[in-house]
Each structure stands twice: as C-alpha cells, then as structure tokens.
C-alpha cells in the first residue's frame, strides 16, 4: 500500500441549509480493497458517497484521486475518474431490455442507428463478468429486484470502473444471492478494483470488507479493520452498547387470531395453510420468489386469491378487499416502504392517520384535531424522531419512516400484523426498537406474521418458522429447531426446475 490511494477524502464538510450533514470526515480507499462505511441512517453515509459520485460537492475539505487533488462537480466527472456508483434506488429503465439498459448512455451506433449486435455483445460480456444468466431481450421490469440489482452492477462494471461504490447492495438480496454478489466483489478485488461498500449487516462487512469507517451524526468516529468484533462496531456506530440484537420475549400463546386455510392463487402460491396465535410471531422464510410476499398481500386483501379462506378471530375475511381486512384487524407493513407504505410528500400525521381517516370521521368530515392528537401520542410512544408531526414523512430517516408505517396500524388497533421485510434499510438501533415493538404487540395479545429475506432476523424474532418453497409451505420448524441449515434445506426443496428467472 505504498502507492497513493485510489481515492482519498480529507476533512470534507457539507451543510444542507442549517443541517450539518458531514463534519470533517476522512476516507481513504486503496485499489484492490473493499472499504465498508458503517453508520446509522442519517449518519452521513449517503452524503459521503454522493460526494464521491459527483452529486454533491463538499463545502470544505479535499478530494484526491490517485493522490492528485480533484473536484468532482458532476457524475460525468466521477465516471471519467473510473468511479461508478450503485445507488439504493436503481437507475434502470424498467420498460427497456437488459441489453439496452446495460449500454444506456453509450448505445453503440452504426451510421447513426443502434448497432444491435454490438449492443448485445457488450451486454453479454458484462453479464458474463458477474456470471449472471438472464435473457438480454427481457425487459428489466420483468426481472425480480435481485436480478435488477445485478444488472445494474453489470452495467457499472462494463464501463471499466476502478472504484465501485455500492450503497446497500444486499438490501434486497437473499443470502444465496448475497453470497454470489460477494464472490463477484472478491474477484473484482483481485483485479484491483477498489470498492466502497455500505451495508447494515455487520456479518457482511466481515465477510467482504477489509476496513471499516464508522460515521455517527455526520462525524468521523473511527476506522477499524473489518474483522473487528461486531459488538465493537455496534458500539462505535450507535454510541452505546446494544445488549441483544434480537430481544424476543415470547409470551404464552392464546387462541388462534389469524387462520389461513388452503389459500391458493394460480401461479403464485398453492394450498397455503397455517395459523398464528395470540402472542405469537410466525416467521415466513424462503428464497425470493418463494411466494412469501404474495401470501402476505393476499391475506391483507391487496391481491386476489383463487380459493381458500382467511379468518381473523374465527370470522372469515372477504378477499381482495383491503378495507375489510383492516376492519377485521389486519395491518400490513409492505415490503417497500417508499413505494407502498408511505405518501412521502404528506406529513407524518397524515401518514399515521391513513388507515383511520374514515373510521374516525364525523360524517364526511375528517377528525383532523383527533388525528393530530393521536399522531402525537403514537410518535411519542414509538419514539419517532421528528420535531413536528406536520413535517413531510419523507424528511425522516428510514427507521423512523418504518415506525410511521407501524404506527398507522397501532392507531388502527390492528391485532394481526403482517410484516414484510420490516427492517429493510433500517439501522441497527431502529431495528432493535422495531423488534421491541413486536414484543409489545404480542404481549398485548397481538399476532405477528413476519416475512423476511434476512434469515437471521426470521430465526431471531420468530417463535415458529414456516419455510416456503415454490409457492408452497415446505415445512414448519419450532424456533428451537430452526437453524439456517434446516431452513435452507427446506427452502431449496423442489424449486430448482421451476425457477430459472
């Protein structure tokens, strides 16, 4: 490491209005290493990588590429330095094909027309590099989110990036897909590519990282080797120790609250039956595409199902009718907070009150005063960090946004909660708070059905685990027997032939 570092940020500083986003932060990335950035949401990670990507320029401080001081005023400049960024929100055009997306912005031309052969060659080459096998002529929209992500990485690599910035690349991936991605990252490392890697998963940092920079509240905290103990990383990140990542306290279970009987939906899931009792957390595990989300959406009335029955507290719930499900006591925290959970431009109070808007009304009039009072109560109760419930919910951090989605169902008095990826994109501190919230829901007689692609979470917080494979419940494991291996062996059961996405 005697050569000058690939990228060095020295004492960079950034303000947005009155808010200090970054305060004298240093970061050094060498070629052929993976440098992890760790910090809770709002710690400044995104601002930092946006500086590297040319989205924001620092107010003060210096950036060096190969030891030479530079400015990165825009993304084109970043690209010219060989810096490619994979943002959390993917930059793909859903309606265009894989090949078109990979070559977007530098579509090969012949006589002013698109050179399709060349385009396909470049795209295939890019896919081969990361060992991804998808049809070049498929539209990106028809791919699952995991594959979309890999296409985005292939696209970045096809421009010969020397420095790859990955903002939570594993957030939407299953453990198998994550491992696949890591193999790709390791091979890139061997080829001398430097990487900046953001993840909330501490185990991933140890698995793929070389060193870690920890940020907190916009300030540099420390730089440590990636194999530092997790407890140390958490302490650096949160500023205090966290005793237990999965603080599950299972109360005695009562009568079944949610019963699902032979639920089937053509092409999505088949004969799914189970029940969740009062006080119980049942985890739904399985690979992406196994049907977890689809089952949750059918139970919550969002999507229709063909046959079968859903009962809450013994009473059947009408299918494909969200408001019937809500009245029956079902609350649904969808997998994508920004796309499905929240109206980002609306205030915290409006978002909290969405499910109770018509139920609390007097005739056609919304009970605005009551909604505000209840919103304030629930923000206090859930410790949602906002100084004013009239602020747009989009201005909150990821963890606090997710708590708003939970709060909505708390206000609606939902006793049966369907949680789909409840901690995706949420920092460790908020994660633990959400788990504690699940504890308090179940200790009050609530029933929770939790689907997550994060296996440690499913295992850590569930009292019972249902494993789905190919749209069916492949098996059920009590929490004592639910290990990663046991779950995975059920999850891959009989799905290979049907799954060639």
């Amino acid at each position, binding site marked *: 490491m005697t050569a000058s570092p690939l990228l060095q940020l020295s004492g960079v500083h950034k303000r947005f*209005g009155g808010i200090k986003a970054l305060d004298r932060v240093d970061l050094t990335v060498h070629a052929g290493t993976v440098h992890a950035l760790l910090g809770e949401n709002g710690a400044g990670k995104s601002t930092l990588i946006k500086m590297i990507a040319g989205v924001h320029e620092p107010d003060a401080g210096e950036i060096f590429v190969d030891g030479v001081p530079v400015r990165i005023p825009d993304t084109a400049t970043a690209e010219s330095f060989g810096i490619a960024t994979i943002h959390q929100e993917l930059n793909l055009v859903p309606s265009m094909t894989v090949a078109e997306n990979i070559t977007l912005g530098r579509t090969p031309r012949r006589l002013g027309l698109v050179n399709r052969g060349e385009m396909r060659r470049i795209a295939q080459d890019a896919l081969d590099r990361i060992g991804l096998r998808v049809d070049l002529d498929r539209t990106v929209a028809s791919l699952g989110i995991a594959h979309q992500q890999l296409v985005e990485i292939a696209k970045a690599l096809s421009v010969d990036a020397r420095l790859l910035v990955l903002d939570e690349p594993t957030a939407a991936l299953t453990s198998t897909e994550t491992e696949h991605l890591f193999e790709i990252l390791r091979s890139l490392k061997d080829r001398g590519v430097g990487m900046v890697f953001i993840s909330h998963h501490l185990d991933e940092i140890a698995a793929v990282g070389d060193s870690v920079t920890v940020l907190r509240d916009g300030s540099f905290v420390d730089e440590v080797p990636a194999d530092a103990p997790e407890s140390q990383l958490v302490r650096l990140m949160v500023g205090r120790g966290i005793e237990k990542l999965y603080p599950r306290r299972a109360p005695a279970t009562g009568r079944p609250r949610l019963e699902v009987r032979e639920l089937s939906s053509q092409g999505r899931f088949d004969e799914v039956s189970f029940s969740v009792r009062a006080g119980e957390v049942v985890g739904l595990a399985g690979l992406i595409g196994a049907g977890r989300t689809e089952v949750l959406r059918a139970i*919550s*009335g*969002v999507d229709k199902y063909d046959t079968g029955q859903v009962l809450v507290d013994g009473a059947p719930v009408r299918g494909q009718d*969200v*408001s019937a*499900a*809500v*009245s029956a006591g079902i609350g*649904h925290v*969808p997998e994508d907070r920004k*796309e*499905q*959970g*929240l*109206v*980002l*431009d*609306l205030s915290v109070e*409006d978002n909290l009150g*969405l*499910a109770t*808007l*018509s139920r609390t*009304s007097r005739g*056609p*009039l*919304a009970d*605005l005063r009551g909604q505000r009072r209840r919103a*304030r109560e629930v*923000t*206090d109760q859930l*410790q949602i*960090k*906002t*100084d*004013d*419930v*009239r602020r747009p919910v989009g201005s909150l951090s990821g963890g606090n946004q997710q708590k708003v989605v939970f709060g*909505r169902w708390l206000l609606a008095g939902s006793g049966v909660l369907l949680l789909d990826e409840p901690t995706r994109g949420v920092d460790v501190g908020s994660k633990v708070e959400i788990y504690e919230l699940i504890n308090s829901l179940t200790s009050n007689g609530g029933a929770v059905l939790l689907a997550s692609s994060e296996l440690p979470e499913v295992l850590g917080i569930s009292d019972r685990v249902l494993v789905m494979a190919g749209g069916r419940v492949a098996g059920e494991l009590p929490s004592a027997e639910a290990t990663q291996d046991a779950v995975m062996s059920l999850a891959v059961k009989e799905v290979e032939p049907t799954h060639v996405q």
Partner: protein
Amino acid sequence: MSSDTTTSPPRAETRSTRQRISALLAENGALVGLLVICLAMFIATPEFLTARNLLNVGNQAAVVAILAFGVTLVIVAAGIDLSVGSVAALSAIGSGWIAATGLPGVLGLVGGPVLGMLAGLVSGLAVAYGRLPSFIATLAMLSVARGLTLVISGGRPVLMPPEINWLGAEIGPVPVPILVMLVMFAITAFVLNRTVFGRSLYAIGGNHEAARLSGLPVKRITARAYALSGLFAGIAGLVLAARLESAQPQAADTYELDAIAAVVIGGASLAGGRGKATGTLVGALVLAVIRNGLNLLNVSAFWQQVVIGLVIALAVGADVLRRRVS
C-alpha cells in the same frame, strides 16, 4: 428530548400575523407573482387599480376559476380532466333545453350541473374501474360532450331562462359570478382540507399504492373526484351562459387549458398529491389580470397568447426552482 417539542403547542398558533403573512408568501409563490403583476399593471396603467376594473377582472376570472377548482380535485389525485370546457357547454345547453321544453326554469338550474356531474362520473368510472388513463378518458369526454352539445342545440344558441340569468347579473356593484366563484372556492378549500374525501385525494395522488394498501377506497374516491369536476364544470357553464343570457354550443372551447394552467400556476403538481384551492384561485386571477392589463395597454390579442404562455412556463419554472432550493 423530542417529546417536549412534539407536545408543545404548534408554532402556527402562536405566530404573529406578520410572520403568518410572510410564511404564506414563502409557501405560495403564485401569490407573490400575482402581487408583482398587479403592481406592474398599476404602474403601467393606473386605470388598472380602480374598483370597477378590479370587479371586471374578478368577473372575467370567475368561469375559469370555477372550472379550475374542479380540475384541482382531479389533479391532486394525480389525474387530469381535459373535458371541463365541453362539459360546461353541454350543461348550459342542457339547462336551456330543459327550460325550452316548458319545464320550470329552476329545473334547468339544477339539471345542467347534474348533467355535468353525470358526464364527469362517466369519465371517473372509466378511469377508476375501466383503468383508462385519465388523459384519454377525459379527452374522449371532451369530444363526446361537445358533440352532444351540438346535437342537442342543432348548432344554434339556446336562450337561458331568468331563473338562470341572475347568475350573470350584479348584486349592487358586485357581479354574481364573483360571488359564485368565492362560494366554489370556499367549498373546494373545505373539501380538500377538512373532509375524508379531500384528505384521501392527497394520499391517492401522492402514492396510489400506499393509499390502497392502507384500505382507502381508491376507486370510489377517484370516480367521485371526476364527478365533482363535472359538477363544477356544469356550474361554470351556467355562469358563462347567464352572462350572455344564452347558451352557445361553442362556449368554453379550450377553457380546460386555462383551467389546467390556473391549477398549475397555483402550485399544484401534475404528478399529484399537491395542490390547493387558494393556489388555484390565485392562478385563475393571474391569468385574468394579465389579460385585463394587456387589454388596457392595447396589446393585441395575438401577443397576449404569447405572454400567457410565457407566464405559465415562468410560474411553473420558478416553482420548481424554489422547491429545489428549499
């Protein structure tokens, strides 16, 4: 730490009037624009700021404003209503036709707007349940309503009964259209701010999927927004016809574009989730003030169109800039 800030009384309730006015101006760029334009017009021609002329401006703004209030409901829900001009004409002809058959004129007063509401409802059902894009559904209604207007009227103007004509008269010095406009403004503001329906429109426009997953009856609410837009168009049509004491089959042609312009100048987003009755009122006034001022300055009607176009682009551009800065 955060609890004492959240439980303390909201700042707006303790703010002074001056702070509230400056906040209002900061939030509402269109209002600033309106004041600037008024000032400029006054400097250019003192005649602008006479009571008579201002009432005239209000009178001219009224029809577009009433149309625009209805369109605001649709735009907040992330839709668009291109049919309001045609629906206004259809309603007016319908009212005149009812009166001409010898039925009481009051029936015409009610029948026209109801006809407008039905036309809006058809568009709304096509959008909400038929899943047609709102642009297409209301473009179709634009043509259908105009066609029906011509069919019913045979292409000839229809006389309006006195039970409707008072809508175009004056009470003292104040033209009735201004009063109708203010009443419709109050109704729109009330509906958007205070009712479950109104709050739901913002949620649906802001994020359709989140609204649906929260259990809001998205389709029913969407259909209702278009029906209301049709009802508003019907009322606007009557006001327009009353001023002329007859319904013209070609009346309110392209008024939908002025209505949409007013909504957009008022700060609403065509992407949905944002828009206010006050903004729309200001937007309609901006258009009327410019037309009126340019008339006073003897600027040709041809050039007026150019100016109006620039103002729309400028207003929305400034709004985008302001949002990006803040």
